[in-house]
């Protein structure tokens, strides 16, 4: 019998006293920093924790956070959302996707608005439900609009595998899975955000392994600490970063050792590799085209690829964001949500103008919800 209780896992990593004492330890050690720390937390889950627990207020002024592009909903360009809408509007079709995706505005409407207009668009709790829906509707086409970083990719691969094994012929996949390392590399190569340390994503790393970030310390001499999502994890990660900087090291370290290894989940990695391959180009919302930064279905399985099969009805023109929206600048780490003219006025979680306001992992949404902590 394990000595660990569920309660320890829930409460232990959120304990306010632990949070305070860790913050103090960081403040003490940060006195030895030779230059201010600009830490990018790549993942929207971390942005959420940082804002929810008011971590910037607990830390010295020499440590600031740059919010990264790791929110799968926020980086989806409008033309891809228009794809989903075009697919949903095909005759006899059910369109499936995950969570917040249905609220993100495309060029004219969102999937949620189209659903209200009568199209059969369903948010899924788990991609596995796609199999059930396809089987229950044999006379309909079912398209799964798959989104997410490395974290959700193996689940899509598992559904593709089951579709083939169970001979389901009416289920198709529109793949929008994106990869963290090329996006982070693009931001570093650009250099404007002046990031000098990274908090590495939690769940992406559970799947891919921490090893995928090795190029950051190697190429840019930038420390990376893979942290868990709990506030204590994030603070511990920051402490490890401060120590690296003070000792003039740039290493890849794992704070989140209870779930992350260097190698990651190799079963999941194999599953991805069997069905998906890198795509030469993908346009990130606000950031622009990044080569090899996303995945697509392998040519052997092209008969499942909605982008190929229904290609002739899918719009191809790149569509830029609303002209007032500065999501792209925020995702590149060059601005904070409050710098947007319509933040909290014309753009709120209920009336999102841009993608960063939609998902709870988006920087604008996190600032909006937890602004009270900031004041």
């Amino acid at each position: 019998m394990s000595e660990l209780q569920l309660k320890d896992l829930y409460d232990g990593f959120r304990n306010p006293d632990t949070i305070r004492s860790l913050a103090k330890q960081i403040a003490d050690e940060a006195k030895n920093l030779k230059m201010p720390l600009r830490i990018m937390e790549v993942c929207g889950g971390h942005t959420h924790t940082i804002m929810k627990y008011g971590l910037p207020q607990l830390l010295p002024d020499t440590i600031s956070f740059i919010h990264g592009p790791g929110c799968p909903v926020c980086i989806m360009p409008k033309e891809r959302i228009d794809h989903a809408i075009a697919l949903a509007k095909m005759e006899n079709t059910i369109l499936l996707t995950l969570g917040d995706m249905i609220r993100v505005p495309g060029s004219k409407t969102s999937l949620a608005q189209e659903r209200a207009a009568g199209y059969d668009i369903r948010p899924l709790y788990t991609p596995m439900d796609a199999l059930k829906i396809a089987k229950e509707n044999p006379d309909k086409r079912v398209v799964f609009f798959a989104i997410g970083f490395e974290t959700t990719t193996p689940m899509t691969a598992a559904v593709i595998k089951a579709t083939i094994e169970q001979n389901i012929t009416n289920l198709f996949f529109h793949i929008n899975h994106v990869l963290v390392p090329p996006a982070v590399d693009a931001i570093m190569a650009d250099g404007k955000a002046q990031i000098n340390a990274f908090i590495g994503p939690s769940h992406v790393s559970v799947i891919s392994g921490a090893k995928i970030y090795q190029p950051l310390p190697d190429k840019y001499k930038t420390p990376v600490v893979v942290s868990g999502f709990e506030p204590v994890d994030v603070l511990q990660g920051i402490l490890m970063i401060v120590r690296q900087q003070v000792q003039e090291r740039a290493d890849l370290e794992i704070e989140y050792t209870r779930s992350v290894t260097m190698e990651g989940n190799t079963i999941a990695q194999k599953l991805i590799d069997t069905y998906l391959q890198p795509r030469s180009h993908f346009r990130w919302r606000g950031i622009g085209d990044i080569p090899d930064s996303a995945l697509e279905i392998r040519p052997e399985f092209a008969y499942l690829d909605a982008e190929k099969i229904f290609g002739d009805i899918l719009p191809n023109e790149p569509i830029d964001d609303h002209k007032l929206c500065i999501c792209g600048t925020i995702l590149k780490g060059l601005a904070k949500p409050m710098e947007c003219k319509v933040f909290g006025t014309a753009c709120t979680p209920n009336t999102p103008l841009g993608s960063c306001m939609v998902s709870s992992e988006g920087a604008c949404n996190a600032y909006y919800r937890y602004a009270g902590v900031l004041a």
Partner: protein
Amino acid sequence: MCLSIPSKVVKIDSESNIAIVDTMGVTRKAGLELVEKEDIKVGDYVLIHIGFVMNKIDDEDALESLKVYKEILEIMDEDERQKLVLEDDNCENRGA
């Protein structure tokens, strides 16, 4: 999308390759496609993401981290108490 709340495995249905887990008192099903079947046992802590078990949480590691944090807390408390006393000693307004 990403929640990191740990779940406890309460039952394994090997026929349908599904684990029944308890997440803060809520019972849910989770697919075992992404893990080695022999690796997951009843009583294990796991992370669930969009209906799948992603990995097993290393109990010992979690316990170890929690212990370290407790120690930090205890040391800091003493340290802080001392600081308070010292700061009090230096207080310019004493007796004002």
